[in-house]
């Protein structure tokens, strides 16, 4: 069959109208039409070859196919239809091109890609981050904890007003709990601070737990404080803080790679999605820490009531932001999850 197109000499930008003759035995010949023959004489004979000795561009969309001869001459076809028929006869078809045109593969690809994206985000990244976080040397955790404490002391915290006696009581409460639960070599340390009317507890990357005076006041008995401490020990047990740092790093790299483009809007989109996803991870971690605390409470005291009580008391003011914009799950959801552990 004969295909119309144009030929270009090696290393040149001059196009010459040409015809390509494709034989059913695989033979290929390029015939140049308007012959300013003087530049062609040497090459002329070489423009005759066979399918084994020529580079044919891979099928891609509807881009015109090009044939590159060993001596560097190229022929580009005006129309691909005949070439595709000839290549099929020669058993040279691109399976990739067929996949890309097939609607079943396309739909399957959409489903599988969305599914794997969902799986990677939901389970893959937290799991990998957990493994990586385990291998981070304790020195790093210590360093980060010192840095955060220094920062918090400078900006938010004020010194605790609790009596030394009360502080000592709570410290021994912590060591009595942690000796029964933590098998790790790290012993949690307890610090006391005051934080402008906010009842809260914090865990640092080296296992230090900080209680605010307001939380100690809010709790009705030491059993509730044990529940809070156990929740924080749960974070430490699951290495949540380092895990979250690794998660954040992975997410930002991924988001920038996927969303990022030349416009600044891409970056805004990327950081927004990183924020939302990291909040989701944070909620998962909170539930995991609750579960840890509930399990210990159940085996030690036979009831998870203390944890539920302190959680409900912490919910002093109703939150107005929607669930997906919060770092902690709603109290209702948390209490329900705890109840699953102790259905009574």
């Amino acid at each position, binding site marked *: 069959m004969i295909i119309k197109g144009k030929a270009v000499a090696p290393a040149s*930008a001059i196009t010459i109208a040409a015809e390509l003759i494709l034989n059913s035995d695989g033979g290929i010949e390029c015939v140049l039409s308007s012959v300013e023959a003087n530049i062609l004489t040497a090459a002329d004979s070489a423009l005759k070859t066979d399918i084994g000795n020529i580079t044919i561009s891979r099928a*891609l969309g509807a*881009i015109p196919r090009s044939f590159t001869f060993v001596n560097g001459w190229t022929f580009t076809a005006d129309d691909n239809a005949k070439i595709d028929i000839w290549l099929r006869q020669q058993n040279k078809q691109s399976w990739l091109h067929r996949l890309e045109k097939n609607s079943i593969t396309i739909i399957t690809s959409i489903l599988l*890609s969305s599914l794997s994206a969902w799986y990677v985000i939901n389970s893959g990244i937290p799991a990998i981050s957990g493994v990586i976080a385990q291998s981070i040397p304790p020195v*790093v955790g210590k360093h980060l904890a010192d840095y955060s404490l220094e920062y918090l002391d400078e900006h938010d915290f004020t010194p605790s007003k609790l009596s030394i006696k009360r502080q000592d009581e709570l410290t021994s409460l912590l060591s009595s709990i942690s000796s029964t639960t933590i098998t790790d070599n790290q012993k949690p340390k307890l610090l006391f601070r005051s934080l402008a009317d906010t009842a809260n507890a914090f865990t640092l990357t080296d296992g230090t737990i900080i209680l605010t005076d307001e939380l100690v006041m809010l709790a009705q008995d030491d059993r509730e404080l044990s529940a809070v401490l156990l929740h924080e020990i749960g974070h430490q047990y699951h290495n949540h803080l380092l895990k979250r740092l690794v998660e954040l790093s992975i997410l930002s790299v991924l988001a920038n790679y996927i969303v990022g483009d030349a416009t600044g*809007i891409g970056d805004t989109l990327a950081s927004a999605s990183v924020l939302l996803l990291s909040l989701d991870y944070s909620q998962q971690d909170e539930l995991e820490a609750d579960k840890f605390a509930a399990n210990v409470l159940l085996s030690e005291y036979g009831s998870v009531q203390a944890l539920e009580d302190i959680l409900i008391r912490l919910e002093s003011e109703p939150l107005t932001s929607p669930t997906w914009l919060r770092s902690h799950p709603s109290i209702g959801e948390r209490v329900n999850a705890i109840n699953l552990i102790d259905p009574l």
Partner: protein
Amino acid sequence: MHQFKFHGKGKEYFGIWIVNILLSIITLGIYSAWAKVRTNKYFYGNTELSGDRFDYLAQPKQILIGRIIAVIAVSIWAALNAFSPKIAVVVMLAFFLIYPVLVVRNLRFDMKMTKFRNVRFNFTGSYKSAYIVMLLKPLAAYIAIGVSFAVTLIYIMPFSKTLGVIFLLAMFFIASPFLLAWVMTAMNQYIIDNTGYGNLPFATNLKTAEIFKISAKFIILMTLIFVAIAVVLGLLNVSMDSISSLSKESGISATFFFAYIAMILGMMLSQVYFTVRIRKYILSATKLDNQVQPISTMAVIPYLTLLLTNLLLIVCTFGLARPFTMIRHANYIASVTQVDGDLSLTNATDQITNESGAIADELSQAFDLNISAI
């Protein structure tokens, strides 16, 4: 007059795009190198000028090696950022020092991988000039701004408030666009003058004054938009207070939402204005082989509309519309680009250049250093 034409189709490219993604997932990212080549080949191969298509020549294996090194570098960078910000700062400084080298190698690679007919493009800029235009001049500009700011605050402000304010305004509306123009002119001049199509050189004659005019208008436009937003916000708040205090909280958050959207739109508008005008000017000042003249007919509102609708499409489809937006973008860019002059290019011959890898190419992509003229 020759018009660029783009022949890609959204539906056709969607199949290529989604299969690229699936195969990249299945091969744990290894296929992404092949995917990149296929994507570039699709966009280059569908771009037509004077009856002929462009071609992208990179081999997937080169890309893969570059990509592996880039992934390692990005991971180290992300880890440093999370765990040791101090070391990260040191690494960032070191990165700035090698930045011009990366850009030069990236340009060399990209140009060499671009073919039109049987002639490849090339970039022959020296490292020395790259350090001057990409490191020394920007640094000098920053220092100049910093020093004049400090001098104004420390010495002029105490002497006379009015004079100080006048100085600050002058710095903002005159000095900073001038320095921006000075740096941009040098950088684009360097890139274009060192680019060639085979043996035929591109040459440009950029004037700092022209780019200064565009930069100054850009800054004035941005200021006007921000002032307008601030005024509207002020009016809204006042009326909100006087009408009702019942829905005040939701009113305030709605106002902030409005302000945020308006800010983004305003930023985009001024950015697009800048891009469109700079592109038009630089192309008009550039010639290939002293006779082929590129022309840009890009306009602010159509381009802004395109970017906004593309953004909406991507957000509403969770990214699935990305291939369509890429095709729309390429279509628009081709439709606003022409070339005037004789394109038979009979005297062009391909130049043999030494091989270079794709490492710099992948690194600059990974760290989002989009350096290119226009």
